[in-house]
C-alpha cells in the first residue's frame, strides 16, 4: 500500500499543474512568513532609537536616556539650524532600571511606539557611571542582536543626560553630527578616535588590554543679550533662522580626548597633546599639529608642522627580570608656517633651519609620547596602550594579567622618532 501511494504521489508530482501549485504555495508561504511584518510592526509604530545616554540614578540604578528622531520634522522643512520647519527634530525618552538591559526594556513604558534598536548609532556613558564600571553596560549592549555592534561608544564629561538634548545646528539630528565627526578622515583631528561597541567590548574583556573611550563634551547654546541668534539652543533642535552671534550662543558637541579605564572603571582623562600622542601610539590616526620652538636660532620664531603620516613599530624585550618596550615612530609632516622665516632660500642657512625643525619635531614628539606614557604609568596606573598585549605575545608563558598591574608602572619605554618634513607648501 505504501509503495502504491508512493508511486501515485510521484506520478502526481510530475504533473506540471501540481508542481506549479507546490511552487506557488511555497512562494506564498515565504511571502507571509518572511516579509518581516509579523504582528503589525509597522514603521510608523516604531521609535527608532539612534542614541542612548546612560547615567547613574542614585546608588544602585541606572538611567537610560534615549533619543529618537521625528521623521516628519525632516520631511516638513529644511535642514538649517538643527530643525526642519522650526519644530523639534527628535524626542527624548528616559527610564530607570537596575541594569542597562532592564532600563532599555522599560523605555517601552514611556512611549506608544515599539522601541527599535536597529538604528542605534551612538552610546554615551556618563562620567559617574563610567567611574563605577562599564563592563555590565558593554555586555548588555553587545549581547543583544537587535543593537548594532558598530555603534559609536563615548564617555561624557559630566552626565550623559546633559548632552542628550544638545543639537549642533549643522545637522538635523545630533547623531549624524557625531557620526560625521568621527568618520572624517582629515588630518585635523588627532585627539580622538572612533571606538565602536564591539571594539570596546573586546578591550574590556581582554586581560592584556585596558579600555579607552573617546570623550564627548557638550555645551548648551547661550542666547546672547537682546535675544538674538542662538541656533538649536533648546533640546530638540529648535529654530534655525536666527544668526548665531558667537560660538557660545549655539549648541556644541566636542569630541576630544579619551576617558582611560582600569579594570573597566574610568580613572582619568588624556587631553590635548597626551591624547594626540595616544592616537599616534595606538595607530588610531595620523593627523595633528606639532609646534616647535626655534627661537634660539631664529629669534622669536616657531614652526608649525602638520603630521600627514605616523607609523609606529613596537617591540618588547627582557632585561633581566624587567621588560623594556621600544617604540620606533616614523613620521612625515608638512610645514604649515614659520612666522616669516623662509627656510631654503639659498645656501646653508635654510638647510640648517630645515634640519633644526626636523630635529625639534622629533624631540617634541618623543616628549609628547613619553609624557603620555608617564601619565599612564604614574598617575593613572593603567595600561591603556596595550603594552601587556605585546608582552603576552612575546612571552606567553610569563605573562600574567594580575602581575602585569604591578609591573606596568615600572616598565622602561624607549621612544625613537624619525621625522621627515616633506612639503613646504608654497613658500620656502
Amino acid at each position, binding site marked *: 500500500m505504501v509503495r502504491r501511494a*508512493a508511486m501515485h504521489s510521484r506520478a502526481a508530482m510530475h504533473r506540471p499543474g501540481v508542481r506549479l501549485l*507546490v511552487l506557488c504555495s511555497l512562494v506564498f508561504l515565504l511571502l507571509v512568513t518572511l516579509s518581516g511584518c509579523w504582528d503589525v510592526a509597522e514603521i510608523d509604530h516604531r521609535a527608532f532609537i539612534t542614541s542612548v545616554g546612560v547615567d547613574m540614578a542614585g546608588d544602585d540604578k541606572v538611567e537610560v536616556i534615549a533619543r529618537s528622531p521625528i521623521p516628519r520634522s525632516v520631511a516638513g522643512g529644511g535642514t538649517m539650524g538643527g530643525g526642519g520647519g522650526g519644530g523639534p527634530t527628535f524626542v527624548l525618552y528616559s527610564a530607570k532600571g537596575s541594569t542597562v538591559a532592564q532600563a532599555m526594556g522599560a523605555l517601552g513604558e514611556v512611549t506608544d511606539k515599539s522601541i527599535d534598536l536597529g538604528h542605534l548609532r551612538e552610546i554615551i556613558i556618563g562620567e559617574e557611571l563610567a567611574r563605577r564600571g562599564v563592563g555590565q553596560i558593554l555586555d548588555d549592549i553587545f549581547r543583544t542582536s537587535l543593537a548594532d555592534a558598530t555603534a559609536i561608544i563615548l564617555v561624557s564629561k559630566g552626565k550623559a543626560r546633559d548632552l542628550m538634548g544638545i543639537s549642533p545646528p549643522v545637522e538635523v539630528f545630533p547623531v549624524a553630527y557625531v557620526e560625521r565627526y568621527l568618520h572624517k578622515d582629515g588630518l585635523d583631528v588627532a585627539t580622538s578616535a572612533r571606538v565602536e561597541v564591539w571594539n570596546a567590548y573586546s578591550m574590556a574583556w581582554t586581560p592584556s588590554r585596558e579600555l579607552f573611550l573617546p570623550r564627548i563634551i557638550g555645551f548648551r547654546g547661550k542666547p546672547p543679550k537682546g535675544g538674538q541668534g542662538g541656533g538649536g539652543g533648546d533640546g530638540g533642535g529648535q529654530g534655525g533662522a536666527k544668526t548665531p552671534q558667537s560660538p557660545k550662543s549655539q549648541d556644541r558637541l566636542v569630541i576630544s580626548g579619551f576617558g582611560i579605564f582600569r579594570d573597566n572603571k574610568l580613572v582619568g582623562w588624556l587631553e590635548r597633546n597626551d591624547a594626540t600622542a595616544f592616537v599616534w601610539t595606538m595607530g588610531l590616526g595620523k593627523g595633528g599639529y606639532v609646534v616647535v620652538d626655534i627661537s634660539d636660532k631664529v629669534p622669536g620664531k616657531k614652526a608649525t608642522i602638520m603630521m600627514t603620516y605616523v607609523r609606529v613599530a613596537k617591540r618588547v624585550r627582557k632585561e633581566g627580570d624587567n621588560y623594556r618596550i621600544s617604540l620606533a615612530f616614523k613620521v612625515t609632516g608638512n610645514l604649515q608656517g614659520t612666522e616669516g622665516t623662509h627656510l631654503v632660500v639659498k645656501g646653508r642657512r635654510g638647510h640648517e633651519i630645515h634640519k633644526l625643525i626636523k630635529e625639534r619635531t622629533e624631540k617634541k614628539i618623543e616628549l609628547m609620547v613619553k609624557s603620555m606614557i608617564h601619565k599612564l604609568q604614574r598617575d593613572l596606573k593603567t595600561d591603556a596602550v596595550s603594552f601587556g598585549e605585546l608582552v603576552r605575545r612575546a612571552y606567553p608563558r610569563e605573562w600574567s594579567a594580575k602581575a602585569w598591574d604591578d609591573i606596568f608602572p615600572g616598565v622602561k619605554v624607549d621612544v625613537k622618532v624619525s621625522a621627515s618634513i616633506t612639503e613646504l607648501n608654497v613658500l620656502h
Partner: protein
Amino acid sequence: MDRGQLHKGQLTSWQMFWLLTIGTTSTVVFVSPSDAYQILGYGGWQLILTSFIISILATLLAVKLGRRFGGSTYVGCSRQALGPTLGFIASGLLASWYTFAAAADSFLLARAMKVSLLIETPLEAIFAVGVLSVIYAVWIGVERFAMFAEVSLLVLIPLIVFLVTSPLKWVEVGNLAPVFTFPIRAYRSPGFWLAAFMLRVHAFLYMLYPSFVNQRKAATISLGAIALAGAFFAVTFAYPVMIFGMPVAKILLWPFWATIRVTRFSGFPVEKLLYFATVAWQVMGTISTSLLVYCASVCLAEMFHLKDYRVSLIMLIPVIIILTVAPRSYTDFHSYWVRAYYLLGWIATIIVPAITLLVAVVSGRRGNSGA
C-alpha cells in the same frame, strides 16, 4: 530491490565536489570554531588539523567500502558484510545520524535567521519555511538540487569572498600569537576527540557513492572537498581571533558570525554585511540539510526495501521537526545536541563502517562487481 529507482540522479564530479563541500561547511561552521578555542585555545588549529586527518582516513574508508561492494550504498555494503540483522543496525545508526544532523542544521539555520534578520518572526514560522524548502529540494531529487547547488555558486562564491575580505581592516594578526602551543592535556580529553569529528565529507559518501558518474574519481573529489572545507574552517578559526582576540572569541556564541556583525558600509545599498551573510548561509544550509535528509531518506528506503525514497522522506519529516524543536534553549542544544551529534557521528560514520570493512576483509566478502 530496484536500485535504479532510488538513485535516479547521477552527479557529475563538479556537482559532487560542491555538494560535499557545501554540506560540510554550511552550518557546523557556527559551532566548531568555538570548540577549537575552548579546548585548545591558541593551539586550536591542531583540532582542525586532527579533524582533517580523521576525515581523510574516513573518506578513504568510505571509498574502499563502496569499491569493495560494487558501488553499493552503505546499506548494501553493511548487509553483505555483516549480514541482514547487524547490517540493518549499522545502517540504522547511519540513518539516525543523518536525521540528527539534519535537525541540528535546521536548528542553527532557523536561529541564525531569527537573530540576524527576522527578529520578530516566530522561530516556528522560520523553521516551517525551511522545512518546506528542504522537502521540495529532496522531493525533486539529488540531481536537481545538485544543479541548484551548482547555480548557487554564482551567488555564494562572491558573497563568501566578500564576507572574508570585508572585515580585513580590523584584523590584527598578532592576536593569533602564540601559535605554537601544544596543550598535550587537551589531547587526552574526550571533548577534543569528539570535536575532531568536524569535517563530515565521508558521511555523505556512504549514500552518494552510487550517484557518482565517475566512481573512480570519488577519492580525489572527496579529498578536494575536504581540503577546501578544511581551509574554510581554518579561516573561521583564525578570523575571530584576529579581530576580537582569543579571550573574547572564546565567549562568542558564533565567532565567525560575530566578525560579520562588526562590518558596516556607510552608504552601501545594504549597509550591514550580516544580511549578505544570512543569504549565503541560508542557501548553503538549505543545500546541506537537503543533502542530509536525502541521504537519510534513501538509507531508510533501502533498509525497508521501499521503491521510492519519498515515502521515507514523508515519514522522516515529523521526526526531524520533533528533534529540531526539542532543545528548548541554545544552552540545551550546545550542551547535549552538539555532543550527541559528534558522538553518533563517530559511531555511525567512522567506527561501525570501519568494523564493517574489517569484517568484510577478514571474511573475504565483497560485492558482485567489486574490484
